[in-house]
């Protein structure tokens, strides 16, 4: 899976949590939870969706790595890349 594909999936799933937002134009460094007003349940739903679509389980200790769109894509790409190398 490429980095762009991961980013696309992430944007889609964020769109499911925050449907009224134009997710294609989210700034890379915007703080996702604050800018998009996502609460703990919304964020948990995002983590669940990412686990389903990317087969990547984000442990609670790593939630902070998903603070921004850029950070989230980096984190998920690294995890996905690591899985492919095995």
């Amino acid at each position: 899976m490429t980095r762009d594909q991961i980013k696309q999936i992430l944007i889609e799933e964020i769109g499911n949590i925050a449907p009224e937002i134009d997710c294609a134009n989210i700034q890379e460094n915007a703080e996702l939870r604050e800018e998009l007003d996502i609460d703990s349940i919304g964020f948990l739903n995002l983590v669940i969706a990412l686990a389903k679509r990317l087969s990547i389980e984000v442990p609670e200790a790593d939630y902070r790595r998903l603070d921004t769109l850029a950070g989230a894509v980096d984190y998920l790409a690294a995890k996905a890349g690591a899985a492919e190398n095995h």
Partner: protein
Amino acid sequence: MGVFRMPSLGADMEAGTLVEWLKQPGEGVKSGDIIAVVETQKGAIEIEVFETGTIQSILIPAGRTVPVGAEMAVIASPAPAAGSMPTAPMAPPPTPEATPVAIPVAKAVLAPTAPLGGARPASPAARHFAAKHGIDLAGIDGSGPDGAIVYVDVEKAWQARQTVAAIPAAPPKAAVVPDSATAMRRAIAAAMTRSKREIPHYYLGHAVDVTATLAWLATNNAGRRPEERIVFGAMLLRALAASLGDYPEFNGFHRDGRFAPSDRIHVGMAVALRQGGLVAPAIHDADKLSLDRLMAAMRDLVNRVRAGRFRGSELADPTITLTSLGELGVDWVLPVIYPPQVAILGAGSPAERSSIVEGRVTVRKICQLTLAADHRASDGHRGALFLRAIAKRLENPVQP
């Protein structure tokens, strides 16, 4: 033989529009079945029947506005009448002594209808919404069973048509406020105005050290898949529900000039809606649920509320409400009691604060709890004991 009446779906509701019957004369019903869809200011709500029997006749056709309490259908009981049968109210009666059987939290029921001009089937609520807003169902993707179009699909399509200005650096605002948001605002205004006019509120606050609880949650969640993880809000729910048993004057309804405690504990959860507005539907028998089941019920309820799908009994039944500001908000809230309830618990965002533990200054995670209560039903002394009981449960997480 019984008569099914329009249930009350909230303190501010006087009437609803009957969108569609989901059961027809001759069909059998059992207690808890969804019998019709009613449109209110809070959206399309599925209403349940609380009797088992067969629908004998429908008294009000779809499309009519029906006042709360009006007779809607006649239901014949299954057993043959040996003599005259007492007429029992079908909708959840207003008195707490006769609260309905706990309704399992379940997905919305669809009555798939014949495809419109070859398009996919659509639920009655979806068709009603589409007709009202002039939306062509043919262009909509359905997310329901077998690709059926459900209410939330049509609502999403309609909202997408409204211009939404996306400002990445600032919270997004809709350029046009949809009808449903305005109606929601009116409903909240009516309820809150009534609350402030009629209920003599008193307030108590307490700073709770939740460091141990948050640490316990982190440890517990570390080995769990995302679907099984527990959020802090569930701990608040559990602490509140568990404490109410000893403090019945905070759990029930004040109506007709007097307070009646409820023998069941249904905690209303205030859920903020993304398009603006607030609803606080109930988690039934919250005191009887394990922490895992409480979390599952909470997540399911929040998701359904945000998708616009909740049940009549969830709106009408809360015996107390919890409003939590989650991790994004502010330190504390002075909450407003939702009539006819007599109390509401507010919880601020847990935040790091300098604190004194065993005589030494240290950093702890503090959550500000606030209790607003109806002075007609309780006094500050009991309120303080109640709040302390909740705080104690939050300070020392008990293993489930």
